[in-house]
């Protein structure tokens, strides 16, 4: 599952952050929770992906302090939201076509 997931990782991260800003650890936990444990990604994949999405202008980030801990919190930019919408449309069209063939 994780190998197949890599091609969709960017979209999934954008989708998780569309709900609310979060730090890397929370993004991983949310991915795992939303997929009922199917998407249990190695930690080493998430942070480079977050940095890449930020460099692409799809995410923005900043430090926040809570309970004496500094955390890098990521949020979706307007461009990121637009990208997510277009990826959603692409995925729906693709999955509909695959469903039609497989069924």
């Amino acid at each position, binding site marked *: 599952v994780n190998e197949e997931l890599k091609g969709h990782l960017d979209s999934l991260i954008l989708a998780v952050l569309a709900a609310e800003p979060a730090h*890397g650890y929370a993004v991983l936990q949310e991915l795992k929770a939303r997929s009922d444990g199917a998407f249990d990604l190695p*930690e*080493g994949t998430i*942070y*480079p992906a977050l*940095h890449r999405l930020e*460099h692409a202008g799809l995410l923005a980030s900043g430090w926040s302090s809570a309970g004496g801990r500094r*955390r*890098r919190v990521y949020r979706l930019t307007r461009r990121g939201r637009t990208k997510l919408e277009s990826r959603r449309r692409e995925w729906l069209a693709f999955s509909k076509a695959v469903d039609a063939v497989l069924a």
Partner: protein
Amino acid sequence: VTYVDELSRELARRGVHGRSRRRILAEVEDHLRSDAASERQFGAPSDLANEFAAELGTHASRRAAVAAFAALAIAGAVYAAVFVTLSPQSIQSSTLVTAVVVIAPQVAFVAGVLALARARRRSLATAELTVLHRRTGTALAFGAATMGALAAAAGSTTAYVAAAAATTLLAAAAAPLLASVRIRPQVAGSAGDVFDDLGIERLRTDPWRFARLVALGVGAAVALAGVVQGDPLDGLARGILEGAACLAGFAALGRYLGLRR
């Protein structure tokens, strides 16, 4: 030695320093505090450092290519403005200076465009990054040479000041390039060529055919300009020279700039 210490060392080995390194370490440290057992899930520090270096190196190299092209565009405007405002009598140049004034901006433009073409690609192997750095560096170096020759040829204070300002800008655009060269990820893959960059796989089997086509196109455009200016013979001579210069450039810089493998 903790995981974070090892990661710090591996990042430094790959040229990731300063704010970027501090940020990565702080994020990983915070993650490990949330879940100490996840250390194994991060993978080997060297692999993680390499992933970050690949991402940062690609991003920095892209920025460097864009900055170089922006500086070249301004230098190009200076070049055009100096030529438009100069009277033919005021031009004092040797054959060498004239050759540099004519050839260097073309090399700078082509290298700059090729750098941008490669910078558009999403992820780049180490060898591809090297070619991108070469293209950006060549564009800046030839741009600076153009400005130097232009100042020497123009022989006027205004032209000299304008060329000096443009050269300063080109030198400033070299800073992001130097920063990107310092990041050294290890990502397997070939250096690629211009056919990968432009998506014209068809011509890869015969790169010289591609070179001949480009030379023919450039030569024809220059010859046509001569016809429009009312001097077709001069246009034809210039067109032949331009075409020959294209082929010579392809032979001399083709491999270095990743035009051919």
